[in-house]
Protein backbone atom coordinates (compact mmCIF):
# COMPACT_ATOMS: atom_id res chain seq x y z
CA UNK A 1 0.00 0.00 0.00
CA UNK A 2 1.13 3.54 -0.64
CA UNK A 3 1.26 6.43 1.78
CA UNK A 4 0.45 8.78 -1.10
CA UNK A 5 -3.20 9.45 -0.13
CA UNK A 6 -2.08 10.40 3.39
CA UNK A 7 0.47 12.92 2.12
CA UNK A 8 -1.99 14.36 -0.44
CA UNK A 9 -4.57 14.85 2.27
CA UNK A 10 -1.98 16.34 4.63
CA UNK A 11 -0.83 18.75 1.95
CA UNK A 12 -4.42 19.90 1.43
CA UNK A 13 -4.88 20.51 5.14
CA UNK A 14 -1.65 22.46 5.48
CA UNK A 15 -2.55 24.50 2.40
CA UNK A 16 -5.74 25.50 4.19
CA UNK A 17 -3.99 26.04 7.54
CA UNK A 18 -0.75 27.66 6.32
CA UNK A 19 -1.61 31.25 7.15
CA UNK A 20 -3.10 30.25 10.50
CA UNK A 21 0.04 28.25 11.43
CA UNK A 22 2.32 31.09 10.33
CA UNK A 23 0.31 33.46 12.51
CA UNK A 24 0.59 31.14 15.51
CA UNK A 25 4.34 30.82 14.87
CA UNK A 26 4.78 34.58 14.55
CA UNK A 27 3.83 34.86 18.24
CA UNK A 28 6.43 32.34 19.42
CA UNK A 29 8.99 31.94 16.62
CA UNK A 30 9.88 33.28 13.21
CA UNK A 31 6.45 32.98 11.65
CA UNK A 32 7.16 30.40 8.98
CA UNK A 33 5.99 27.10 10.46
CA UNK A 34 3.04 26.72 8.08
CA UNK A 35 5.09 27.63 5.01
CA UNK A 36 7.94 25.32 6.01
CA UNK A 37 5.64 22.37 6.57
CA UNK A 38 3.79 22.96 3.31
CA UNK A 39 7.05 23.23 1.35
CA UNK A 40 8.10 19.84 2.70
CA UNK A 41 4.71 18.21 2.16
CA UNK A 42 4.51 19.36 -1.45
CA UNK A 43 7.79 17.54 -2.16
CA UNK A 44 6.61 14.50 -0.19
CA UNK A 45 3.53 14.24 -2.43
CA UNK A 46 5.72 14.43 -5.53
CA UNK A 47 8.24 11.84 -4.30
CA UNK A 48 8.07 8.10 -4.87
CA UNK A 49 6.89 5.57 -2.30
CA UNK A 50 9.18 5.05 0.74
CA UNK A 51 10.93 8.34 -0.12
CA UNK A 52 8.17 10.72 0.95
CA UNK A 53 9.20 11.52 4.54
CA UNK A 54 12.81 11.90 3.37
CA UNK A 55 11.70 14.29 0.63
CA UNK A 56 9.85 16.23 3.32
CA UNK A 57 13.06 16.50 5.37
CA UNK A 58 15.10 17.74 2.43
CA UNK A 59 12.58 20.35 1.30
CA UNK A 60 11.46 21.73 4.64
CA UNK A 61 15.05 21.89 5.86
CA UNK A 62 16.39 22.90 9.23
CA UNK A 63 16.04 21.08 12.51
CA UNK A 64 12.24 21.13 12.39
CA UNK A 65 12.37 19.30 9.05
CA UNK A 66 14.27 16.50 10.75
CA UNK A 67 12.08 16.35 13.86
CA UNK A 68 8.75 16.29 12.00
CA UNK A 69 10.36 14.08 9.34
CA UNK A 70 11.20 11.42 11.93
CA UNK A 71 7.50 11.31 12.84
CA UNK A 72 6.43 11.16 9.19
CA UNK A 73 8.90 8.34 8.50
CA UNK A 74 7.12 6.13 11.04
CA UNK A 75 3.69 7.02 9.68
CA UNK A 76 4.88 6.37 6.12
CA UNK A 77 6.37 3.02 7.14
CA UNK A 78 3.10 2.02 8.81
CA UNK A 79 1.05 2.93 5.75
CA UNK A 80 3.54 1.36 3.30
CA UNK A 81 4.24 -1.90 5.07
CA UNK A 82 1.78 -2.27 7.94
CA UNK A 83 4.60 -1.86 10.49
CA UNK A 84 3.19 -1.40 14.00
CA UNK A 85 2.08 2.18 14.56
CA UNK A 86 2.29 2.26 18.36
CA UNK A 87 5.93 1.21 18.58
CA UNK A 88 6.80 3.38 15.56
CA UNK A 89 5.30 6.55 17.03
CA UNK A 90 6.79 5.74 20.41
CA UNK A 91 10.27 5.42 18.84
CA UNK A 92 9.78 8.68 16.94
CA UNK A 93 8.73 10.48 20.13
CA UNK A 94 11.78 9.20 22.01
CA UNK A 95 14.07 10.33 19.19
CA UNK A 96 12.44 13.76 18.90
CA UNK A 97 12.85 14.31 22.67
CA UNK A 98 16.48 13.17 22.46
CA UNK A 99 17.51 15.20 19.41
CA UNK A 100 15.50 18.30 20.23
CA UNK A 101 16.44 18.10 23.92
CA UNK A 102 12.80 18.59 24.89
CA UNK A 103 10.43 16.89 27.27
CA UNK A 104 6.72 17.22 28.05
CA UNK A 105 6.00 20.68 29.44
CA UNK A 106 8.64 22.52 27.39
CA UNK A 107 5.99 23.91 24.99
CA UNK A 108 6.76 21.98 21.82
CA UNK A 109 5.39 19.35 19.44
CA UNK A 110 6.19 16.78 22.15
CA UNK A 111 3.37 18.12 24.36
CA UNK A 112 0.93 16.74 21.77
CA UNK A 113 2.93 13.72 20.64
CA UNK A 114 3.89 12.17 23.99
CA UNK A 115 0.34 11.89 25.42
CA UNK A 116 -0.83 10.56 22.04
CA UNK A 117 1.77 7.80 22.17
CA UNK A 118 0.72 7.04 25.73
CA UNK A 119 -2.97 6.78 24.76
CA UNK A 120 -2.49 4.88 21.51
CA UNK A 121 -3.72 1.34 21.37
CA UNK A 122 -3.01 -0.92 18.42
CA UNK A 123 -6.07 -0.17 16.34
CA UNK A 124 -7.65 2.87 17.94
CA UNK A 125 -6.36 6.28 17.03
CA UNK A 126 -9.25 8.28 18.45
CA UNK A 127 -8.00 8.13 22.04
CA UNK A 128 -4.57 9.21 20.82
CA UNK A 129 -6.07 12.14 18.92
CA UNK A 130 -8.03 13.30 21.98
CA UNK A 131 -4.89 13.09 24.11
CA UNK A 132 -2.87 14.98 21.50
CA UNK A 133 -5.51 17.71 21.26
CA UNK A 134 -5.54 18.12 25.06
CA UNK A 135 -1.74 18.29 25.01
CA UNK A 136 -1.85 20.84 22.22
CA UNK A 137 -4.25 23.03 24.20
CA UNK A 138 -2.05 22.75 27.28
CA UNK A 139 0.82 24.49 25.47
CA UNK A 140 -1.05 27.81 25.70
CA UNK A 141 -0.21 28.12 29.40
CA UNK A 142 3.33 26.80 29.07
CA UNK A 143 6.62 28.71 28.94
CA UNK A 144 9.06 27.57 26.23
CA UNK A 145 12.44 26.22 27.26
CA UNK A 146 13.87 25.22 23.87
CA UNK A 147 13.92 26.59 20.33
CA UNK A 148 13.22 30.12 19.25
CA UNK A 149 10.16 30.58 21.46
CA UNK A 150 12.31 30.62 24.60
CA UNK A 151 13.59 34.03 23.50
CA UNK A 152 10.18 35.71 23.01
CA UNK A 153 8.43 37.62 25.76
CA UNK A 154 7.39 35.34 28.64
CA UNK A 155 8.55 32.34 26.63
CA UNK A 156 5.44 32.57 24.49
CA UNK A 157 3.03 32.12 27.42
CA UNK A 158 -0.58 32.67 26.27
CA UNK A 159 0.13 31.34 22.78
CA UNK A 160 -0.46 27.81 21.54
CA UNK A 161 2.56 25.99 20.08
CA UNK A 162 2.24 25.60 16.29
CA UNK A 163 4.28 22.37 16.28
CA UNK A 164 1.77 20.78 18.65
CA UNK A 165 -1.04 21.93 16.35
CA UNK A 166 0.70 20.20 13.44
CA UNK A 167 1.05 16.93 15.34
CA UNK A 168 -2.71 16.82 15.91
CA UNK A 169 -3.32 17.44 12.21
CA UNK A 170 -0.92 14.57 11.35
CA UNK A 171 -2.82 12.17 13.60
CA UNK A 172 -6.28 13.27 12.46
CA UNK A 173 -5.24 12.87 8.84
CA UNK A 174 -3.76 9.46 9.57
CA UNK A 175 -7.03 8.32 11.18
CA UNK A 176 -8.98 9.54 8.15
CA UNK A 177 -6.60 7.77 5.77
CA UNK A 178 -6.95 4.50 7.65
CA UNK A 179 -10.74 4.87 7.79
CA UNK A 180 -11.03 5.48 4.06
CA UNK A 181 -8.83 2.45 3.38
CA UNK A 182 -11.17 0.33 5.47
CA UNK A 183 -14.15 1.79 3.63
CA UNK A 184 -12.57 0.97 0.27
CA UNK A 185 -12.05 -2.62 1.38
CA UNK A 186 -15.61 -3.17 2.59
Amino acid sequence: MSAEPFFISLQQKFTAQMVHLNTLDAAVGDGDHGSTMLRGLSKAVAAGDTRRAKAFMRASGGASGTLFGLLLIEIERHLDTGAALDSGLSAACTRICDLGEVKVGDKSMVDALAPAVEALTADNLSAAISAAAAGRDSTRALVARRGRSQYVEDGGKGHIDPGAVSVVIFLETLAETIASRAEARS
Partner: protein
Amino acid sequence: MKKLFNTAETMVDDMLDGFVSAYPQVKRGVNDSRVIVRDSNVKSADDKVTLLIGNGSGHEPIAMGFVGQGILDANVVGDVFAAPSADLILDGIAEVSGAAGSILLISQHSGDMINGRGAVMMAQDEGINVIALPMYDDISAAPPERKKDRRGAAGTMFIYKILGAAAEQGRSQSELFALGESARDRIVTLAAAVSPGVSPLTGLPMFTLPDDEIFLGMGVHGEPGVGRVKVGPVSELVAEMIDKLLADRPIASGGRACVIINGMGGTTMMELLTIWTETRARLAKDCIRAIAPMIGSFVTTQEMGGFSISLIDPTDDMLALWCAPSDTPSFPKITQLEKALSS
Protein backbone atom coordinates in the same frame (compact mmCIF):
# COMPACT_ATOMS: atom_id res chain seq x y z
CA MET B 1 28.94 44.17 -1.87
CA LYS B 2 29.95 42.68 -5.21
CA LYS B 3 29.94 38.88 -5.33
CA LEU B 4 30.75 36.71 -8.29
CA PHE B 5 27.90 34.24 -8.55
CA ASN B 6 25.36 33.20 -11.15
CA THR B 7 22.22 32.75 -9.07
CA ALA B 8 21.45 32.03 -5.43
CA GLU B 9 19.75 28.80 -6.49
CA THR B 10 22.77 27.42 -8.33
CA MET B 11 25.74 28.85 -6.39
CA VAL B 12 26.46 25.70 -4.38
CA ASP B 13 26.21 23.33 -7.34
CA ASP B 14 28.22 25.68 -9.57
CA MET B 15 30.98 25.54 -6.95
CA LEU B 16 30.77 21.75 -6.68
CA ASP B 17 30.99 21.37 -10.47
CA GLY B 18 34.21 23.35 -10.37
CA PHE B 19 35.54 21.44 -7.39
CA VAL B 20 35.10 17.90 -8.71
CA SER B 21 36.38 18.84 -12.16
CA ALA B 22 39.49 20.50 -10.75
CA TYR B 23 40.73 17.77 -8.40
CA PRO B 24 41.42 14.10 -9.15
CA GLN B 25 40.94 13.04 -5.49
CA VAL B 26 37.17 13.67 -5.46
CA LYS B 27 33.94 13.00 -7.32
CA ARG B 28 30.23 13.46 -6.77
CA GLY B 29 28.26 10.69 -5.10
CA VAL B 30 26.42 8.18 -7.23
CA ASN B 31 23.12 8.54 -5.40
CA ASP B 32 23.25 12.18 -4.39
CA SER B 33 25.11 14.98 -6.14
CA ARG B 34 25.49 16.90 -2.87
CA VAL B 35 27.75 14.17 -1.54
CA ILE B 36 31.45 14.54 -2.38
CA VAL B 37 33.31 11.22 -2.17
CA ARG B 38 36.92 10.16 -2.30
CA ASP B 39 38.04 8.97 -5.73
CA SER B 40 41.70 8.03 -5.36
CA ASN B 41 43.32 4.93 -3.84
CA VAL B 42 39.94 3.99 -2.43
CA LYS B 43 40.02 1.02 -0.07
CA SER B 44 37.06 -1.29 0.38
CA ALA B 45 34.62 -0.04 3.02
CA ASP B 46 34.53 -3.62 4.28
CA ASP B 47 38.18 -3.28 5.33
CA LYS B 48 38.58 0.39 6.19
CA VAL B 49 36.35 2.42 8.50
CA THR B 50 34.93 5.34 6.51
CA LEU B 51 34.80 8.88 7.91
CA LEU B 52 32.47 11.60 6.78
CA ILE B 53 31.05 14.94 7.84
CA GLY B 54 28.22 17.20 6.75
CA ASN B 55 28.35 20.98 6.84
CA GLY B 56 26.78 24.05 5.36
CA SER B 57 28.63 25.53 2.39
CA GLY B 58 30.23 28.97 2.36
CA HIS B 59 33.14 27.90 4.62
CA GLU B 60 35.41 26.40 1.95
CA PRO B 61 37.81 24.72 1.70
CA ILE B 62 36.43 22.92 4.77
CA ALA B 63 35.27 20.20 4.63
CA MET B 64 35.12 19.05 1.00
CA GLY B 65 38.76 20.06 0.53
CA PHE B 66 39.77 17.36 3.00
CA VAL B 67 38.17 14.47 1.13
CA GLY B 68 40.82 12.06 -0.10
CA GLN B 69 43.40 9.56 0.98
CA GLY B 70 44.26 9.77 4.66
CA ILE B 71 41.46 12.08 5.79
CA LEU B 72 37.73 12.02 4.85
CA ASP B 73 35.89 9.51 2.68
CA ALA B 74 32.96 11.84 2.07
CA ASN B 75 31.59 15.31 2.75
CA VAL B 76 27.88 16.11 2.64
CA VAL B 77 27.40 19.64 1.38
CA GLY B 78 24.44 21.70 2.60
CA ASP B 79 23.15 25.02 1.34
CA VAL B 80 24.99 28.21 2.25
CA PHE B 81 25.46 28.37 6.04
CA ALA B 82 22.75 25.70 6.49
CA ALA B 83 23.29 22.23 7.91
CA PRO B 84 22.48 19.53 5.35
CA SER B 85 19.15 17.78 5.98
CA ALA B 86 19.11 14.41 7.73
CA ASP B 87 18.11 12.50 4.59
CA LEU B 88 20.99 14.11 2.67
CA ILE B 89 23.46 13.08 5.37
CA LEU B 90 21.89 9.60 5.26
CA ASP B 91 22.64 9.49 1.52
CA GLY B 92 26.26 10.34 2.33
CA ILE B 93 26.47 7.60 4.95
CA ALA B 94 24.93 5.07 2.55
CA GLU B 95 27.39 6.11 -0.15
CA VAL B 96 30.51 5.12 1.82
CA SER B 97 29.33 2.58 4.41
CA GLY B 98 30.60 -0.97 4.56
CA ALA B 99 31.25 -3.86 6.91
CA ALA B 100 34.08 -2.02 8.69
CA GLY B 101 31.61 0.65 9.78
CA SER B 102 31.53 4.43 9.51
CA ILE B 103 31.92 7.40 11.80
CA LEU B 104 29.93 10.57 11.14
CA LEU B 105 31.92 13.49 12.52
CA ILE B 106 29.69 16.38 13.63
CA SER B 107 31.02 19.85 14.35
CA GLN B 108 28.77 20.75 17.26
CA HIS B 109 26.17 23.32 16.23
CA SER B 110 22.46 22.83 16.96
CA GLY B 111 21.25 22.15 13.41
CA ASP B 112 24.23 19.94 12.54
CA MET B 113 23.74 17.89 15.69
CA ILE B 114 20.00 17.34 15.21
CA ASN B 115 20.28 16.51 11.52
CA GLY B 116 23.47 14.46 11.88
CA ARG B 117 22.27 12.38 14.80
CA GLY B 118 18.87 11.99 13.09
CA ALA B 119 20.66 10.68 10.00
CA VAL B 120 22.62 8.18 12.10
CA MET B 121 19.37 6.91 13.67
CA MET B 122 17.81 6.46 10.23
CA ALA B 123 20.95 4.71 8.93
CA GLN B 124 20.95 2.33 11.89
CA ASP B 125 17.28 1.53 11.12
CA GLU B 126 18.48 0.52 7.64
CA GLY B 127 21.10 -1.80 9.13
CA ILE B 128 24.10 0.45 8.47
CA ASN B 129 26.91 0.36 11.02
CA VAL B 130 27.54 4.06 11.75
CA ILE B 131 28.11 6.10 14.89
CA ALA B 132 28.32 9.85 15.48
CA LEU B 133 31.27 11.66 17.03
CA PRO B 134 30.39 15.22 18.10
CA MET B 135 33.38 17.57 17.95
CA TYR B 136 33.73 20.73 20.06
CA ASP B 137 36.70 22.90 20.91
CA ASP B 138 35.67 26.58 21.16
CA ILE B 139 36.51 27.60 24.73
CA SER B 140 34.50 30.82 24.43
CA ALA B 141 31.22 28.95 23.99
CA ALA B 142 31.10 27.38 27.48
CA PRO B 143 33.33 27.04 30.56
CA PRO B 144 35.47 23.90 31.09
CA GLU B 145 32.90 22.28 33.38
CA ARG B 146 30.38 22.44 30.52
CA LYS B 147 32.81 21.39 27.81
CA LYS B 148 30.11 19.30 26.14
CA ASP B 149 28.14 22.49 25.37
CA ARG B 150 30.97 23.97 23.32
CA ARG B 151 30.67 24.45 19.59
CA GLY B 152 32.93 23.09 16.91
CA ALA B 153 35.59 25.41 15.52
CA ALA B 154 38.85 25.15 13.56
CA GLY B 155 40.49 22.82 16.09
CA THR B 156 38.19 20.05 14.84
CA MET B 157 40.64 19.75 11.92
CA PHE B 158 43.00 17.97 14.33
CA ILE B 159 40.32 15.29 14.74
CA TYR B 160 39.69 14.95 10.98
CA LYS B 161 43.37 14.44 10.31
CA ILE B 162 44.25 12.21 13.25
CA LEU B 163 41.25 9.90 12.72
CA GLY B 164 41.69 9.96 8.95
CA ALA B 165 45.30 8.80 9.18
CA ALA B 166 44.40 6.17 11.79
CA ALA B 167 41.51 4.86 9.66
CA GLU B 168 43.89 4.57 6.71
CA GLN B 169 46.08 2.29 8.89
CA GLY B 170 43.10 -0.03 9.32
CA ARG B 171 42.13 0.70 12.92
CA SER B 172 38.68 -0.41 14.03
CA GLN B 173 35.60 1.76 14.46
CA SER B 174 35.71 1.49 18.26
CA GLU B 175 39.44 2.30 18.38
CA LEU B 176 38.87 5.33 16.17
CA PHE B 177 35.95 6.55 18.23
CA ALA B 178 38.00 6.32 21.44
CA LEU B 179 40.93 8.06 19.74
CA GLY B 180 38.60 10.82 18.55
CA GLU B 181 37.22 11.39 22.06
CA SER B 182 40.70 11.42 23.50
CA ALA B 183 41.92 13.93 20.91
CA ARG B 184 38.83 16.10 21.51
CA ASP B 185 39.69 16.31 25.22
CA ARG B 186 43.11 17.71 24.31
CA ILE B 187 42.01 20.42 21.85
CA VAL B 188 41.24 24.05 22.62
CA THR B 189 40.43 26.90 20.20
CA LEU B 190 39.84 30.61 20.55
CA ALA B 191 38.95 32.98 17.71
CA ALA B 192 39.32 36.72 17.15
CA ALA B 193 37.18 38.49 14.55
CA VAL B 194 38.16 41.84 13.06
CA SER B 195 35.62 42.33 10.26
CA PRO B 196 32.44 40.60 9.06
CA GLY B 197 31.98 38.23 6.17
CA VAL B 198 29.33 39.14 3.63
CA SER B 199 26.54 36.63 3.12
CA PRO B 200 26.37 35.52 -0.52
CA LEU B 201 22.62 35.11 -0.03
CA THR B 202 21.80 38.60 1.23
CA GLY B 203 24.86 40.60 0.16
CA LEU B 204 24.93 42.03 3.68
CA PRO B 205 27.67 41.95 6.34
CA MET B 206 26.94 39.23 8.91
CA PHE B 207 27.67 41.45 11.94
CA THR B 208 29.02 44.91 12.68
CA LEU B 209 32.11 45.83 14.62
CA PRO B 210 33.67 49.29 15.12
CA ASP B 211 37.00 49.88 13.34
CA ASP B 212 39.01 49.95 16.57
CA GLU B 213 37.53 46.81 18.13
CA ILE B 214 38.16 43.08 17.89
CA PHE B 215 35.60 40.49 18.92
CA LEU B 216 37.18 37.75 20.97
CA GLY B 217 35.58 34.33 20.79
CA MET B 218 33.12 35.00 17.99
CA GLY B 219 31.82 31.91 16.16
CA VAL B 220 32.08 31.36 12.44
CA HIS B 221 28.61 32.78 11.77
CA GLY B 222 29.08 35.76 14.07
CA GLU B 223 27.77 34.03 17.19
CA PRO B 224 28.81 35.87 20.36
CA GLY B 225 31.80 34.82 22.45
CA VAL B 226 33.92 36.43 25.16
CA GLY B 227 33.43 40.04 24.15
CA ARG B 228 35.06 43.06 22.55
CA VAL B 229 38.61 44.24 23.04
CA LYS B 230 40.34 47.34 21.66
CA VAL B 231 42.77 46.86 18.79
CA GLY B 232 46.37 46.83 20.01
CA PRO B 233 49.63 45.18 18.98
CA VAL B 234 49.09 41.66 17.66
CA SER B 235 51.63 40.34 20.19
CA GLU B 236 49.34 41.44 23.04
CA LEU B 237 46.26 39.98 21.42
CA VAL B 238 47.94 36.63 20.79
CA ALA B 239 49.36 36.56 24.33
CA GLU B 240 45.89 37.16 25.78
CA MET B 241 44.43 34.39 23.62
CA ILE B 242 47.17 31.90 24.57
CA ASP B 243 46.67 32.81 28.25
CA LYS B 244 43.00 31.90 27.95
CA LEU B 245 43.73 28.68 26.03
CA LEU B 246 46.32 27.50 28.57
CA ALA B 247 44.10 28.50 31.50
CA ASP B 248 41.37 26.35 30.01
CA ARG B 249 43.57 23.35 29.39
CA PRO B 250 47.06 23.66 30.85
CA ILE B 251 50.09 22.19 29.11
CA ALA B 252 53.00 21.28 31.40
CA SER B 253 56.23 23.22 31.24
CA GLY B 254 58.57 21.33 28.95
CA GLY B 255 55.58 20.07 26.98
CA ARG B 256 54.60 20.62 23.38
CA ALA B 257 51.60 21.72 21.35
CA CYS B 258 50.63 21.28 17.72
CA VAL B 259 49.14 24.54 16.49
CA ILE B 260 46.54 25.55 13.93
CA ILE B 261 46.52 29.21 12.93
CA ASN B 262 43.33 29.45 10.87
CA GLY B 263 42.40 32.50 8.86
CA MET B 264 38.69 33.21 8.43
CA GLY B 265 38.90 34.26 4.79
CA GLY B 266 39.83 37.94 4.86
CA THR B 267 43.07 37.78 6.84
CA THR B 268 46.30 37.59 4.86
CA MET B 269 49.07 35.01 5.04
CA MET B 270 51.30 37.90 6.06
CA GLU B 271 49.15 38.41 9.15
CA LEU B 272 48.71 34.68 9.88
CA LEU B 273 52.47 34.11 9.84
CA THR B 274 52.91 37.03 12.22
CA ILE B 275 50.33 35.43 14.50
CA TRP B 276 52.27 32.15 14.32
CA THR B 277 55.47 33.96 15.32
CA GLU B 278 53.74 35.46 18.34
CA THR B 279 52.06 32.18 19.25
CA ARG B 280 55.36 30.37 19.19
CA ALA B 281 57.06 33.06 21.28
CA ARG B 282 54.28 33.15 23.87
CA LEU B 283 54.25 29.37 24.25
CA ALA B 284 58.06 29.37 24.58
CA LYS B 285 57.67 31.69 27.58
CA ASP B 286 55.91 28.82 29.36
CA CYS B 287 58.55 26.39 28.04
CA ILE B 288 56.03 24.83 25.63
CA ARG B 289 57.34 23.92 22.20
CA ALA B 290 55.05 24.82 19.27
CA ILE B 291 55.41 22.07 16.71
CA ALA B 292 53.91 20.85 13.43
CA PRO B 293 51.87 23.96 12.63
CA MET B 294 49.04 24.21 10.12
CA ILE B 295 48.80 27.80 8.94
CA GLY B 296 46.35 29.19 6.40
CA SER B 297 42.67 29.88 5.71
CA PHE B 298 40.83 26.55 5.95
CA VAL B 299 37.64 27.20 7.92
CA THR B 300 36.40 30.44 6.41
CA THR B 301 33.27 32.56 6.44
CA GLN B 302 33.53 34.30 3.10
CA GLU B 303 35.77 37.38 3.51
CA MET B 304 35.43 37.53 7.29
CA GLY B 305 38.55 39.05 8.81
CA GLY B 306 40.06 37.30 11.79
CA PHE B 307 41.73 34.11 12.87
CA SER B 308 41.68 31.41 15.47
CA ILE B 309 44.41 29.67 17.40
CA SER B 310 43.93 25.97 18.15
CA LEU B 311 46.23 23.89 20.31
CA ILE B 312 46.43 20.17 20.89
CA ASP B 313 48.67 18.59 23.49
CA PRO B 314 49.19 15.39 21.48
CA THR B 315 50.14 11.89 22.50
CA ASP B 316 53.00 10.45 20.43
CA ASP B 317 50.42 8.47 18.45
CA MET B 318 48.35 11.59 17.73
CA LEU B 319 51.44 13.53 16.68
CA ALA B 320 52.51 10.83 14.22
CA LEU B 321 48.98 10.71 12.75
CA TRP B 322 48.79 14.52 12.52
CA CYS B 323 52.02 14.49 10.49
CA ALA B 324 51.17 11.41 8.38
CA PRO B 325 50.96 11.96 4.61
CA SER B 326 47.56 12.66 3.05
CA ASP B 327 46.34 13.42 -0.44
CA THR B 328 43.35 15.75 -0.60
CA PRO B 329 42.63 18.93 -2.56
CA SER B 330 43.28 21.32 0.35
CA PHE B 331 45.00 19.77 3.35
CA PRO B 332 48.62 20.99 3.59
CA LYS B 333 51.66 18.87 4.27
CA ILE B 334 52.33 18.97 8.01
CA THR B 335 55.93 18.50 9.11
CA GLN B 336 57.12 17.64 12.56
CA LEU B 337 60.21 19.76 12.06
CA GLU B 338 61.09 21.72 15.18
CA LYS B 339 63.22 24.77 14.71
CA ALA B 340 65.09 26.55 17.44
CA LEU B 341 63.22 29.66 18.51
CA SER B 342 65.88 32.01 17.15
CA SER B 343 65.55 30.67 13.59
